[in-house]
């Protein structure tokens, strides 16, 4: 690291302090996680800004997906999963006992690595979350389905195939359908767990454009393997390694001027 261009401020403050309190959608405090005694996350502290895209990068097994799954309590489903610390969504700890997990997951939607549409029609896939909430009015459902599919940039492609099986769509279309399904229930936050890793380059591009569109309305957190993707779509980037948060900063700064040696090694490809 050369001596010039170092932001002394950045070295002296803790990374999450760069975000103003009022802009924080979710904050993680001293979060540690272990599976059957094997630690996966160690004392993570981090603040996710509202209506921005935050990317988690890092080598395989660094804990970025585990961290993401803490935000909607998906880890609860794993046997032998133990967690300490707090995750505050709009200043409420989502791990406190009075929280209704279903309610939480409606507020924090999630899109998985592999497209996982249900074996139903396109329409029913998008309406699924609404039906779960007890909505059955046909007109209202029609409206929301159309709106969600338009938001997911899928409407024009499949408006004539709404009642066909969703499994007949291409991989990219399926993933955008899953995004439409997620935003149909109007969440505050959307978690994307390597959403483009199983897609071809063109589909990936479409997903990235979609993320860019969506960030005006939703807080987005994306886990990705692909550093170019993180650089393209995100406002903030967190680099994780071995269960620790190594560096968290604005994407520009993290990629052009990383403060940590590990980060630099990783983004320049020197890390194995």
């Amino acid at each position, binding site marked *: 690291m050369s001596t010039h261009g170092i932001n002394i401020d950045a070295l002296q403050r803790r990374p999450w302090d760069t975000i103003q309190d009022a802009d924080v959608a979710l904050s993680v405090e001293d979060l540690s996680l272990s599976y059957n005694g094997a630690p996966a996350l160690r004392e993570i502290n981090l603040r996710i800004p509202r209506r921005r895209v935050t990317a988690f990068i890092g080598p395989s097994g660094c804990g970025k997906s585990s961290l993401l799954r803490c935000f909607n309590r998906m880890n609860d489903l794993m046997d032998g999963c133990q967690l300490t610390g707090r995750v505050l969504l709009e200043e409420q700890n989502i791990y406190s006992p009075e929280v209704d997990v279903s309610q939480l997951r409606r507020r924090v939607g999630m899109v998985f690595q592999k497209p996982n549409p249900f074996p139903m029609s396109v329409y029913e896939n998008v309406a699924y979350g609404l039906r779960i909430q007890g909505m059955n009015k046909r007109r209202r459902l029609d409206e929301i389905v159309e709106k969600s599919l338009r938001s997911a940039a899928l409407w024009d492609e499949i408006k004539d195939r709404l009642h066909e099986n969703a499994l007949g769509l291409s991989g990219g279309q399926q993933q955008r359908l899953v995004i439409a*399904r*997620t935003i149909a229930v109007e969440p505050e936050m959307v978690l994307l767990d390597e959403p483009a890793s199983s897609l071809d380059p063109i589909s990936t591009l479409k997903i990235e454009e979609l993320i860019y569109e969506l960030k005006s309305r939703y807080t987005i957190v994306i886990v990705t393997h692909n550093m170019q993707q993180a650089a393209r779509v995100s406002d903030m980037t967190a680099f994780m390694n071995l269960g620790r948060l190594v560096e968290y900063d604005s994407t520009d700064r993290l990629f052009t001027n990383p403060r940590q040696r590990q980060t630099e090694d990783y983004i320049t490809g020197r890390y194995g």
Partner: protein
Amino acid sequence: MRHSLTAFLSRRGNRLLRLGEPMVWLNAGAVSLSMIAVLGLLGLLAFHGLGYFWPRPVALYEMGPNSRVLAERVSVEQVDRAQLQAAGYPLPAGAGDIARLLLKRGNRDVYGTDFVWLLQHEIVRQSFPPDALRVEREEWGNLYGFLEAVLRDGEVVADTASTPEATWQRFNLELERSRRIHAQIRKLEQEQIAGISRRLERLQDKRDSPQFRAEYAALESDYQRALRKLETLYAEDARHAYRVRLADRQLLTLPLGQVVRAVRPNRMSLLEKLDYYRERVWEFLSAAPREANTEGGVYPAIFGTVLMVLLMSIVVTPFGVLAAVFLNEVAGQGRITRVFRAAVNNLAGVPSIVYGIFGLGFFVYGIGGEVDSLFFADSLPSPTYGTPGIMWASLTLALLTLPVVIVATEEGLARIPRSVREGSLALGATRAETLWRVVLPMASPAMMTGVILAVARAAGEVAPLMLVGVVKLAPSLPVDGIYPYLHLEQKFMHLGFHIYDLGFQSPNIEAARPLVYATALLLVIIIALLNFAAVTLRNRLRERYSALDAG
């Protein structure tokens, strides 16, 4: 060149293994052997079973001037000469085996048996008289002879000696009339009189009510009227008779009302034979059995088999699915669950007769007895549900097939990708909602597989049924037009047991043998049809929920 044998063989073996060719041949051989076995079985059943309904020619065998037999040839076999000699038959000189014919002579009322053996060399002359008559009767089996005359009130109205063709036509005319009378009698007996007696039975319950006397009198007079009508019909029927001459020139006069069907097989054209064949196959499928099950049809057995299998499926499917969901979704995957699962799997290996004994002890005597003492105390000591019946049989078979459904459903549940469940949970669905809306629909093809296997197993099961509800001859079907329409406490007939009964319990083995084949073929076809229906349903479900192939 000196190679040891083992080295040679191992080199040789390695080369064969590498080629893979012998393996392909072995596989193909195993498959073809199984196919041949299955097709051979079906072919055997079809050959013996379907041939039975074809009208065989009736031959007149003459052994001497006063020794004649009019019969259908059933089979020919070669018998060892020494064996016959030892049995005391006078044989001509010579060597080699002797041909022996098995003939269906009929006329059991006259001769005592239906079948007779004849040595080929004793036959002097064999002919196929065109007028030979074959009569199927309600009692005493077939009659073979020549039509002599048609009688009414003991008077001859037409006789073959003067007007042969007119007599045959008159015979058929009277037969038609008698059949109509019989249809009326059957209707009267089964519908009207049975209905009246049921209503009388129910009337007994409200013996104290004021209308009792009036209603009773009305029913009583209905009953008397029906009875009088029945008497007139019987009297009308009894007026008609026919006279036949047997092969040994005996004359017999028999009531026309006993005739089911009369044909002259030697005169039938191919078209008539086909029509006759169709008629008899239809009778086999649609009529009740006669003559200790050796004649007539197997409709009650078909009905009983299908109804029992359906009832069983209705019971076993929800239970099996619930158990599988519990084992796979609800219970933690620990040691206890593993023990449970092993126990369930082992249940599939318990011999079926054990289930029969359990069903008899637990369902019939235990639950059935309890039900009787609680709800049917009036009719005790004669049991209502405390006796073998179709419901207990269905429950016993449901128990027997439960492991199959559980195992198949569990496999289906386990194959559903985690990502789909997570997708549903991530949208705010609870585990129960996810199970109901996504997981169970996706596992439905696997459940159908379980039901298919269960049906296949249950339809072919006989041993436990003999203890919990199957009978040789059920007086009525378990479903009829009388409230409550489905009579679950009744005993029923079953094709599998029917086969056993025909083959091993029949007083007239030779007569029953072709029916054993025909019934066995029918059972195989019915199981195949039930399976086909279930497989079609499963394929439709698979098309809808094909996520497993896509993911």
